[in-house]
């Protein structure tokens, strides 16, 4: 998991996180099993939260049943996990109602999240595919990545949003990648995992911006949740908030078709979610702005929709047949067996004896083998054993047909590796029922295998995300230089290495001259430009092995490992000249200059702080001496004498 890396972002202290009761719930439920009593007690300590949980438990999905009046009953009805998740979601809402990002509309963010939540809940109630309370929670948190980015980097995110509003701008996702090297979807997924919300939630928020389906879902629950939340987002935007989405009606029709919902469903959903949205807005004190319903878009969508009417009773997904190898030395029985299996939708291969069956099984890899027991040469038992010894045959489901007289030998059959047996002459209905039971086992087994593969891939993806998060936590967003945290960590280890090995170590502190006046006169955009340009010049001018970092503001630090004071002073002079020569044009050409202070461990600094302090003093000297110059630490007295 990426908790450790997410920790880097958490360290900023700006990441949205559950507070108060939410935090208590999170702590209580760190482990896999937690008692219902503990959760309900914590929730009951917060009357507002209690009310909201009861509201969810009493919502439309449970119409007609007895009203729920206690958190305990709610937990019985919804399941303790759902109650935990929804409680966590609500505490996030109450703890993050405002923030410092100027371009980010916090109220609208929560109104939008709420619209997605009620829409997702409504869809879940219609489809019966995921618990409605879970759909609500997942919808509510589906955009939490944007909230997080706005909270960690308020100014940068505001600027980015501004850029995104310009005509022809890239999508939010692309802009986020450019600016932060990660997008709100992956960040949201990482946060949800960190809060121990189900994997299906994380998958759904990670894929919410996708146009295409969810074929790579790790499991069925994730696929269903992703479908619902993705559809809910679009439905909420178009039907509740009246947002101007691209290809709104076609997209709407596409999503409804994907969910196999009809026009009546859409209409009902629009009505009920509208009421729910207003009601929840009142409960949570989030101003919701119901826009005039864009009837033409919905009507247009209805025309595109494949399912014309209400589909309250939904057929279960069409059962796909199995690839079955049928084996019998009696041609009549084999033909009849083939007939029964084929008519039940399976794809049947035939083998007239055990030897043929073994070859065919290994060649064409059927999912199931239905074989007679008594056969010449290789009998059913031998076939079982041989298949179980082979790599391909190990996972096949083997159903043995036994004569009445063999029934007391079935233990032998199971020992040989058979999964199931049917006594001959068989009742076709019973045989087919056993085959279907086997099919459930096979599909379960295949799903587990698929899950494992996807999980492996997720682990790999997570490793990449971890590296990105780690890099993001160590990188200055504006200049892409390593940031102060990186500088201090590196310096700590360099200083202790240098002190142990008695090798030299120097630093150059750099401060841009008159930077404040650039900002004041030309604005922050120009200030940013100067910072970026200067950073580039510094990056290109240092020796290989030296680290240039931005400490903050207009301050940079170069760590010159294994460099003496004199060598570092030469580096500093080279940097000074390079910055002076580089002309930054904004409106008119401007020569930016820097003042530099050089300090070395050899000058008597005993630790990082002293080293930085010495360098700072020399920057001050350089400024006092007229700027655009390098000052070095005075050598210690004994060195000065000998020099």
């Amino acid at each position, binding site marked *: 998991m990426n908790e450790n890396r997410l920790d880097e972002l958490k360290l900023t202290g700006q990441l949205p996180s559950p507070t108060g009761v939410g935090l208590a719930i999170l702590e209580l439920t760190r482990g896999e099993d937690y008692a219902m009593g503990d959760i309900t007690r914590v929730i009951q300590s917060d009357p507002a939260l209690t009310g909201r949980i009861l509201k969810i438990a009493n919502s439309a999905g449970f119409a007609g049943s007895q009203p729920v009046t206690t958190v305990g009953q709610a937990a019985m009805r919804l399941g303790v996990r759902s109650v935990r998740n929804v409680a966590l979601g609500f505490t996030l809402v109450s703890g993050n109602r405002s923030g410092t990002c100027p371009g980010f509309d916090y109220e609208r963010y929560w109104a939008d999240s709420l619209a997605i939540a009620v829409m997702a809940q409504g869809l879940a109630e219609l489809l019966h595919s995921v618990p409605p309370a879970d759909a609500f929670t997942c919808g509510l948190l589906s955009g939490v990545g944007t909230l997080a980015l706005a909270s960690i980097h308020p100014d940068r995110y505001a600027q980015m949003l501004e850029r995104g509003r310009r005509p022809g701008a890239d999508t939010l996702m692309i802009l986020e990648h450019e600016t932060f090297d990660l997008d709100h979807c992956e960040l949201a997924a990482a946060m949800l995992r960190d809060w121990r919300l189900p994997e299906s939630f994380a998958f759904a928020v990670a894929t919410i911006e996708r146009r295409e389906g969810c074929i790579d879902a790790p499991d069925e629950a994730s696929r269903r949740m992703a479908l619902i939340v993705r559809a809910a987002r679009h439905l909420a935007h178009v039907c509740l908030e009246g947002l101007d989405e691209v290809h709104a009606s076609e997209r709407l029709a596409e999503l409804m078709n994907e969910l196999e919902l009809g026009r009546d469903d859409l209409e009902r959903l629009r009505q009920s979610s509208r009421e729910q949205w207003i009601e929840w807005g009142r409960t949570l004190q989030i101003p919701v702005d119901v826009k005039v319903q864009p009837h033409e878009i919905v009507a247009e969508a209805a025309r595109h929709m494949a399912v014309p009417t209400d589909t309250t009773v939904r057929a279960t997904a069409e059962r796909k047949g199995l690839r079955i190898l049928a084996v019998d030395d*009696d*041609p*009549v029985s084999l*033909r009849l067996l083939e007939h029964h299996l084929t008519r039940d939708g399976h794809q049947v291969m035939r083998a007239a004896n055990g030897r043929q069956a073994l070859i065919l099984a290994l060649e064409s890899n059927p999912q199931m083998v239905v074989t007679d027991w*008594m056969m010449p040469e290789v009998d059913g038992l031998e076939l079982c054993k041989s298949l179980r010894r082979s790599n391909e045959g190990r996972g096949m489901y083997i159903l043995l047909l036994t004569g009445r007289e063999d029934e007391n030998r079935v233990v032998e059959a199971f020992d040989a590796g058979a999964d199931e047996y049917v006594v001959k002459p068989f009742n076709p209905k019973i045989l087919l029922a056993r085959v279907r039971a086997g099919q459930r086992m096979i599909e379960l087994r295949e799903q587990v295998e698929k899950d494992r593969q996807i999980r492996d891939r997720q682990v790999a993806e997570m490793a990449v995300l971890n590296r990105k998060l780690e890099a993001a936590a160590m990188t200055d967003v504006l200049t892409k230089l390593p940031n102060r945290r990186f500088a201090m960590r590196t310096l700590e280890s360099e200083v202790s290495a240098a002190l142990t090995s008695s090798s030299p170590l120097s630093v150059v502190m750099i401060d841009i001259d008159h930077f404040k006046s650039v900002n004041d006169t030309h604005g922050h955009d120009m200030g940013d430009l100067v910072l970026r340009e200067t950073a580039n010049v510094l990056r290109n001018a240092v020796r290989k092995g030296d680290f240039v970092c931005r400490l903050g503001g207009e301050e940079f630090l170069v760590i010159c490992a294994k460099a003496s004071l004199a060598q570092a002073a030469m580096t500093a002079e080279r940097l000074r000249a390079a910055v002076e020569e580089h002309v930054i044009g904004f409106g008119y050409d401007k020569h930016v200059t820097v003042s530099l202070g050089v300090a070395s461990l050899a000058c008597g600094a005993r630790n990082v702080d002293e080293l930085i302090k010495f360098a700072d003093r020399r920057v001050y000297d350089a400024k006092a001496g007229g700027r655009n110059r390098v000052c070095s630490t005075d050598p210690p007295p004994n060195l000065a004498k000998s020099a």
Partner: protein
Amino acid sequence: MHPSEPESVIDAGVIAGLKELGGDEDPGLYLEVIELFLDDAAQQIVNLREAMARGDTRQLERIAHTLKSSSANVGALRFSKLCFEIEQLGRCSDLAHAGSLVERAAVQYDQVKAALEAEKR
């Protein structure tokens, strides 16, 4: 369902069931199954006699076992019962009694064949 001595050569109920089984999708199934049985059983009668000649009781038991179920599938219940008896005798290596039963089965097969050929028309 298993009368001790089946009256007719071919059980009409089994034949009706076979015809029904193919239904509209596979109307030829019934004829195909009869054809499969007649071809296979003819060869198996030969094999039964050979096994008798060799005194191979194990083989006798196995062939009789297969014939027992395939003949039951086409409604040749009397024939099937004979095969069951041969299977039992084979199992306890009673060649003395098996010989006459194999010949009775061969005669019975000819009757079954005639009856099934009549059904095909």
